[in-house]
């Protein structure tokens, strides 16, 4: 495959004419230096947000779920919106690391590590909400089927919430394992570099005795491949199951068969927007412009265009089916979304998710990082509102007009949402500080991509890592 790597027809994946040693230095040195002032600022803000969230959640747990703006009619709002939003965010990580891996998209190597980290942190944020949204969260473990002494009590396997529990925990475990396995060679590199005894012990333990031999690489790649295969269906299954929370209900606006593909597309869409948000900051702050290049950013923008198209198609289909179905409740729900009391949320969603991504058709905009940053931030907002619109507008105007009610969040709910972002960013900042942001081993494998061979021997001796195990 060496000839591929050195083909001048290909675009360079890593810029700056790096040597292998450069890569190791560029990535690993970050962990040895004192963090930059920007990191401290970021950490301070994130921890402050997290603290706000912790306070709000503690207050809510002490006082009751009534401290949220929910009511008899609208039983879910910010809580499940945040849950679906964060789960969706996670999907890009898995897509990048598993599906793009299987599709042999070499450009993924620069971003997969942080994207996977993002997945894990997003799933942590997501997983919190189904727990704290319960009236009695201290009994949350009751949704887990385990042998118990409480008589014939068992979970209800017909309930999508039980499926959720399985889906999310599976997703979390697989994502974590996948991420960790991918980290092993790099941990070994760090182990070999570090001078601190504590760090050495830590890295030694977690690198599981990696010695860089052919055998270890071979085994490693087999495992990685298998895990990628395992993780791939999860990209589809997790959000499909999450969408069943709504699709299997009887509420107009929820009860619709289009939800699984619609949710998966939306998840990938929002996930890439979040990956881009993080990458744009990270490459700037960590000075990784040569690793995360414009090419990466453009590729991700293109995926966003594609998924935005799918999401848009889903919006239109859903609306059309509602109008065409002849079901008056269904019709009303959709017209009410567009023209009713939450129309502002609906049109925010439509603008951010359908109109905004269309700007990425322009190469100029794709290459303007400020523009990309603003646009993906808007997409993040839009995707949050998508879930809000689905949940709140459907509930607040269901079958009996007598029960229609309005929902507006309390300060506690807003603080909890802010807190979840605080948690996410705190974890991410800790990650960039203590673990290699870029997969050193994998980047080395694509280092020579698109580079003109300087000597005829180079193609032969380049230790290109085989990406495909047979």
């Amino acid at each position: 495959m060496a000839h591929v790597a050195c083909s001048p027809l290909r675009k360079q994946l890593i810029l700056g004419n790096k040597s292998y040693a450069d890569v190791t230095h560029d990535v690993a040195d970050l962990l040895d230096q004192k963090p930059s002032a920007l990191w401290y600022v970021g950490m301070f803000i994130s921890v402050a947000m997290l603290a706000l969230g912790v306070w709000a959640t503690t207050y809510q747990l002490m006082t009751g779920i009534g401290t949220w703006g929910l009511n008899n009619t609208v039983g879910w709002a910010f809580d499940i919106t945040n849950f679906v939003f964060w789960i969706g965010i996670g999907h890009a990580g898995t897509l990048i690391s598993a599906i793009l891996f299987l599709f042999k998209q070499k450009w993924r190597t620069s971003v997969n590590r942080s994207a996977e980290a993002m997945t894990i942190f997003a799933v942590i944020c997501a997983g919190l909400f189904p727990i704290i949204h319960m009236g009695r969260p201290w009994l949350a473990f009751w949704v887990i089927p385990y042998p118990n002494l409480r008589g014939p009590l068992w979970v209800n396997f017909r309930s999508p919430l039980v499926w959720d529990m399985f889906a999310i925990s599976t997703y979390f475990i697989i994502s974590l394992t996948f991420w960790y396995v991918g980290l092993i060679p790099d941990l070994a590199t760090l182990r070999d570099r570090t001078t601190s005894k504590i760090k050495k012990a830590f890295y030694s333990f977690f690198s599981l005795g990696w010695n860089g031999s052919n055998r270890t690489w071979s085994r490693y790649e087999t495992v990685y491949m298998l895990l990628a295969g395992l993780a791939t269906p999860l990209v589809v299954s997790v959000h499909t199951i999450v969408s069943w929370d709504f699709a299997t209900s009887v509420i107009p606006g929820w009860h619709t068969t289009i939800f699984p593909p619609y949710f998966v597309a939306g998840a990938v869409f929002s996930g890439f927007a979040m990956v881009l948000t993080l990458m744009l900051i990270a490459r700037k702050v960590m000075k990784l412009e040569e690793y995360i290049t414009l090419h990466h950013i453009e590729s991700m923008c293109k995926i966003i265009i594609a998924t935005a198209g799918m999401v848009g198609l889903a919006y239109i289909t859903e609306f059309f089916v509602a109008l065409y179905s002849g079901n008056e409740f269904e019709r009303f729900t959709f017209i009410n979304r567009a023209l009713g009391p939450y129309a502002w949320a609906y049109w925010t969603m439509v603008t951010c998710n359908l109109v905004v991504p269309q700007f990425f058709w322009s190469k100029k905009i794709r290459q303007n990082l400020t523009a990309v940053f603003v646009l993906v931030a808007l997409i993040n907002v839009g995707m949050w509102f998508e879930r809000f619109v689905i949940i709140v507008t459907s509930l607040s105007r269901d079958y009996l007009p007598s029960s229609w009610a309005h929902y507006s969040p309390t300060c506690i709910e807003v603080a909890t949402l802010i807190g979840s972002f605080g948690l996410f960013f705190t974890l991410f900042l800790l990650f960039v500080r203590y673990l290699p942001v870029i997969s050193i081993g994998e980047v080395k494998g694509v280092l020579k991509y698109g580079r003109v061979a300087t000597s005829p021997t180079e193609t032969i001796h380049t230790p290109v890592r085989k990406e495909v195990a047979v």
Partner: protein
Amino acid sequence: MAEKNDTILLDRAADELPPVQGVNRRDFLKLAGFTFGGALLAGCQPAKVEKAIPFLIQPEELTPGVATWYATTCAGCSAGCGVLAKNRDGRPIKLEGNPDHPISKGGLCAIGQATLLGLYDSQRLMSPLANGKAATWDEVDRRVAEQLDRIKKNGGAVRFLTGTVTSPTTEALIRRFLGMFKDGKHIQYDALSASAILDAHEKTHGVRVLPQYRFDRADVLVSFDADFLGTWISPVEFTAGYCEKRSLQGQPPSFSYHAQIESRVSLTGSNADERICRSPVEINIMITQLAKAIAAKAGITTAGTPTDSTVSRLAEKLWSARRRSLVLSGINGLAIQIAVNFINHLLDNYGTTIEIERPSHQKQGNDRELKALLDELKSGSVAAIFIHGCNPVYDLPDGQNLADWLKKTPMVVSLTDRLDETAEVSTMVCAEPHALETWSDAEPVTGVLTIMQPLIQPFGSTRPFTESLAAWMGEKLSAHELLQKEWERTHFKRQTEKRSFKDFWGDAVKQGFATVQSKPLSSRPFNLDAAWNALRESTGIASTELALVLYPTMTMHDGRHAHNPWLHELPDPVTKIVWDNYASLSRKTAEALQLEEGDVVRIEAEGKSLDVPVHIQPGQDDKTVAVALGYGRKGTDRFTNIGPQWLEAKPTVAAGSCVGTNAAPMLAWNNSMLTYDISNVRLTRTGQTHPFASTQDHHSLHVPPHLAPVDGKRRPIIQETTFAAYAADPSSGSFEKAEVVSLWGDPHKYHGYHWGIVIDLTACTGCSACVVSCQAENNIPIVGKDEVSRSRELTWIRVDRYYDESDGTFSVAHQPMMCHHCDNAPCETVCPVLATVHSEEGLNQQVYNRCVGTRYCSNNCPYKVRRFNWFQYEHGDERQRLVLNPDITVRDRGVMEKCTFCVQRIQEAKIAAKRDGVPLKDGDIQPACAQSCPAKAIVFGDMNDPNSELVKRIKDPRHYRVLEELGIRPSVGYLTLVRNREGEGA
């Protein structure tokens, strides 16, 4: 203590050891273990020992855990409905209608249900007061006796001011008491006065009585602003009679016609077949016109037909139903009531739909006498006044002046159960017990004697009214003895059935009432000429100015229930607003005055003013502003912190103010009659706003036009039809039955019982008695105004109200809504922990202990009848918690709850049937909502029993189930709402 014990034990153990050996390892371990164990056991003791003493000698009829029922009489208003009180372990926990009672026939209204909570109100007076300080009864008696002696010696006016006294025993006592003085007088008044009706009968029939209205005999009913289903005289009795004529039973089915002419939307108006919206002045004119039109038909005059086509139509209908019609007016004006009598006389209704020979005593107030008394008090010529069963300082227009006049009066004795506005300015306050703590009686309607009996040892040192009176006459007799004596002396003779008084008395106490004979009241022949002459003269002038209508609500009545949080939290049957009164305005008027919902306006009339927030009310007359009486009671700031307290919680009552505003100062005197319609009022905006809490917004069944570009169809929730269409086709108005194809098959088989409910929407008036009944039965806490405004009310049954203004007319439909116990319940499938499960009798059961509170079930409920404990809701103070039903779990925060079909009653009846070895009979089980329904609109039963009343109703062509097309198979059904209207069935 524990330590001391341990040392003793240790010492003893040490003594037993051989001294020479000392303590070896084994012994040491033994002792150490023993000490440790002892300390541990001592530590297990609870900190405080509470003594629970079982009955050593158990009272004969009392079994712990088994309820006993006693018949008594409701004292919520003067209607005198029969009550069965459920007593558990020495305390009443539920009031229900007495099915055998001749007046209420098993119904009990919201107020009646809620009076129970008043018993456990810790702010009731617990001892008498003298000059505002707590005193002993001896001291009070001594001081009263001194003053009375002085009056007996020196002369002076003694006045007794009471509300309507329906108790013959009390009345006799007052008469005897006043007989001791040269100038003694008993004045009765009603804050919600019907004085004009009595005065009119004095003019037309020569007797000052309130006749009995027989709604069960009226085929055509024209009511001018008489809210007889909600607040007027005896709503439960009237509702029962009204519904009897609208039951659609019989072949061919018959159905009464009811026209309501009113300026605001009353509960009665919302049920009328034809609701005619007019301003108060226009109503007056209309009555006169109707009288003239009827007179023309009767041949008294040859004047032409009235200009108003509505009037001629009504006259036509009434005339064709002579002897079977009834014209009523709730307006307290003498001329109007004379006109009404005139109409009823010409229609030959006296003797059929109006019984004057056996009059009612439910309203006996005399406004003229009251006015005279006020003048006396003003001039300071009263030496002593006794006030009982009324609160004149609060509910009279001159309340503030009256307070000053009372302060001038040498002796003012208030006999009341709480320190109300009047008691505050009294020299002596005699603490009265609650009606459920004392013996009394009532004769609400001539010939029907009802008994009130105590159900609990009275709280505090209170004394019944009759005992106080007897004491001041020098008789030391208990209320029980006084009552028995009076019955033996007077009422025993009024019957022949029972030979011994003991039998008579015993039966009366057991049944809660006794029917006795009474001599028919002889009245003068109708004074037609006088009435006609008065009428001919009267011509009203239509005014374009705004008029103020002061009306009572179904919860506060005249304000006497303002300390009852159950009633404050019961939504108004029409506006659905809780915890407030307001100025209702039509949309047009509000727009013209640039007012919006919640804007506080100042209403000014005749130099008086009132600040109230505006509520925009569809169906209201454009020239009318309506404000409810009974609010703004002093001391209602006690509810400020009712409901959960948290960061964003708003108080139920603004600190330092009251629940609502007292509108009574706006009342006016007109020809010595209390007038509730004030003409020529001015409205100005104050700039302040006041938020309301309502359980339902104005969303109608019609999709709002701006949201209905595709179709504006009515939601298939309430089936409506006209009587004509029903007579032609009993299934008229039915929704298209959707064919439900289910992939599920029959998930549940019901081999034994399969419980269900059918609600007749034609019978249901929306009176909401079921809501309070359910609240009392099922320990539903009060959540406060803020929680309601956040749509978190906790009631398990609600009455949905839908306005319909689609075809230019205004109409209202009421629909009680509770858990439908679906066979394919959407809530059951989505609960992750199986906290809501299906019973083999078709009940959808909520397992509180298992619930983790995901609220998914509630989201997935198409009827939105599930209720969540958003907070740890309080059940009031220690005394108030005595009202809790011990059969019902008190729910914790974080769990879902909902209607159970009163599963505790089902179980109780099943166990009783099993114990007695007899099969369960249809009707043995009555959920709380069905039991007290004055209209008998709710029928509960077994869907598997082909002979049950329930199945009979399910087979009725009117039967339908709401949202049946979802395939969820609800167990609650409804019967089409039939109204005697023109036009096609909807």
